[in-house]
């Protein structure tokens, strides 16, 4: 039995230990905020925070996070008012919105590690997260805004 804490709640799994965390979250735990975009760590849509680090849940097995703490978009802030989320709304970042949970989790992890990233650092840190709609300019501005106070 694998035990993992997701958004502060203890969850357990006794199926395939190799099951990607992404599918555990979405299909077994019903946390559909985390998205599937590529399954190969190429797009960042599935990004969650494990302990304090952004990880791609599509290539992370449920076994890899046993005993660790996973935060998904649903658990980032109880009212959805994390500075990154607020900045996202202020800048009107999303178009279709599908990549945005991953983008937001990546940005939140970046700011934990580097509270005042430069524009170049933002562009580099966010380069693993594809937005096919092309919201990059606004994502960059929103991360900057979140880092300087919304």
């Amino acid at each position: 039995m694998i035990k993992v804490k997701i958004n502060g709640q203890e969850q357990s799994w006794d199926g395939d230990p190799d099951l990607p965390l992404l599918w555990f979250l979405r299909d077994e735990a019903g946390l559909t905020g985390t998205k599937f975009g590529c399954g190969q760590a190429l797009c960042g849509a599935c990004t969650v925070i494990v302990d304090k680090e952004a990880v791609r849940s599509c290539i992370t097995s449920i076994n890899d996070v046993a005993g660790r703490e996973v935060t998904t978009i649903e658990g980032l802030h109880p009212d959805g008012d994390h500075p990154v989320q607020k900045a996202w709304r202020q800048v009107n970042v999303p178009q279709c919105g599908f990549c945005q949970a991953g983008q937001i989790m990546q940005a939140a992890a970046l700011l934990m590690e580097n509270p005042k990233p430069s524009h170049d650092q933002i562009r580099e840190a966010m380069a693993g997260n594809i937005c096919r709609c092309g919201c990059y300019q606004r994502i960059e501005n929103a991360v900057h805004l979140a880092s300087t106070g919304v």
Partner: protein
Amino acid sequence: MNFIDKPGKLRGFEKNIKVEKVSRRSILKGLGVTGGFVLAAPVMTRQAFAYETGAGKMPHGVVVDPRVFVAVAPDGTVTILAHRSEMGTGVRTSLPLIVAEEMEADWSKVRVQQAHGDEVKFGNQDTDGSRSTRHYLIPMRQIGASARTMLEQAAAKRWNVPATEVKAVNHEVVHSASGRKLGFGELAADAAKESVPSIEGLKLKDPKDFRYLGKGQVSIVDLHDITTGKARYGADVRLPGMKYAVIARPPVTGGKLTSFDPDAALKVSGVEKVMKVQGWPWPSKFQPLGGVAVIARNTGAAIKGRDALKLVWDDGANGRYNSVAYRKDLEEASRKPGLVVRREGDADAALKTADKVVTGEYYLPHLAHVSMEPPVAVADVKGDKAEIWAPVQSPGGTREDVAKTLGIPEANVTVNVTLLGGGFGRKSKCDFALEAALLSKELGAPVKVQWTREDDLHHDFLHTVSVERIEAGLDKDGKVIAWRHRSVAPTIASTFAAGANHAAAFELGMGLVDMPFEIANISCENPEAAAFTRIGWFRSVSNIPRAFAVQSMVGEIANATGRDQKETLLALIGSPRIVKPNVKDLWNYGEPYDSYPIDTARLRKVVELVAEKGEWGRQVPKGHGLGIAVHRSFVSYIATIVEVAVDDKGKLSVPRVDTAIDCGTYVNPERIASQIEGAAIMGLSLAKYGAVTFKDGKVQQKNFDDFQVVRMDEAPLVTNVHIVPPAPDTPPSGVGEPGVPPFAPALMNAIFAATGKRIRALPIGKQLEA
């Protein structure tokens, strides 16, 4: 021009391949049930409004009925239906916003509800062709004005005063003479009893009183949900007892399953079943390709099970499709005369006597949509009833196709439209929903069919592959006197009928025969091209290769004559006028030409605006270059300036992009900006990387590592969007698609300015590294 015997029931762009039209009578008959009323084409009378659109000619036309679209609750909450699909353009916000504006509703008290697929009830729902605002600005205003009038009438009756003395203002009806006020909620029950006013008698608001329209201060309705993970896309639908499926499909279009061995798959933990999926021969519009489905308790198990399947396929005739050889075929075809689709003067003769001929042959490979959300659908089929949840651009078409595929009446099919995680034309084709319906029927349980990214790339309805060859004849003063453009590409019509090998009218009308330059001798030709895979419309469609070719050629002419790009472009556009191409049945994006002519004054204006705002001619550092391009598509006018920087290793970056757009009367400039910013990214993606290639009939790319798209570290540093303020009564025109076509040629012209290298084959790939 094309060889379609039985076009069947076609939708959207396909409509232009077909003959059949929905009769007004059948619409009215259908509507008798709901008691609404329908506007047949034209949508509005010319006396009442300044322009007509093609909205009434779409399948099922337009429905203008406040009782269908608006509900007012006793607490004052106004619910407005969004009947078009949201894929990132903001339409789910902007159309209801138009209703709210006109009915004087307070936007903070408005809830938006997504309509299911029912075109008899709601009118056409095909969310494609950059049509929503252009077709629905007036109908949505009429719906809002009707609702407002009904509320005003109810208040006037309550107070026993003439209706002319009362006025709806911000969610209340006011009688200013007596100072009395009643909230919309208090009037809701009475207003519902009022008769719906006639459209002819409606009074629309004076645009100077607009609170929301044209202002851009309203955020999209889904903003909070998107940023908190609550927004519901196709894959986020979960039903009790739902199974998870992935499907192994024939690797070659039109291929068939020979045999399969499910044993290893069935041993995978979580896998419950392996079953065949019905397939249709190629081409058959959007019908599923068939294959083998793995059913499991979660998607991860289904994918792992599919990896374990042993499959043997018969590739069929398309197994001979090879992109390298096919490109040569296209090039050869472009060097010989083809079907003439526009002729003015005598281009062949003029090219012979020209002082100089500039020739360019431009190649653009297949492109995949790769919307961030891969295709996915949930179906629950019970007996002769089906319910679907899916991110589809055409809910009405999906409903028809599900009914046909399952052999049940359309009335028994409910299509719930989720948010779309991007569409770009891919999700106008509902094959994934049909697969889910077939599987659910056979399983007797709700099922979700999830496409992986590999599935998406391997079984897309790809953007076509093309060679555009242009020869421009110049006289001794450098004036262009002859223009011969041959466009060769497999047609979208080939997805609907075997053997279609010439462009359909709507493809010809996207940048080939509608070419706006003032040249005495013009010949546009369309040599044959056969299709070997499923071709579909991709954001901007044929405009991408055509603008790439035409606007690159402008740069080549500027170079050949030693003149400035922008001056060359303006000289080619010529005098301000309405262009009247000598084309039989010119396709004008489905719009009447009177309302939406090719107006070179507007074309010139966006060039001049972008040149001014984008500081054309500014000094740029060494290794940088500026390029410009303009293109009219989806009846909008767009010009783009790209500044490129190419370092000594040939690495390219884009410091700045400026785009000017004239899309007529607009609703939400903030969303126009986001569409244009996004179009620059999509344009840069296709220019740098875009290529789906075939070997032995199989797509060679698998995922975002070999079908790359632009990431943030290579995105333009800044994209500025300049919107032309509309003259009064200018009809609204497209926004979602037109931003893409001018980007690549502006970039190619910029690269030439920076490096002296002219790139004629996309993607750029390593061409600058040499």
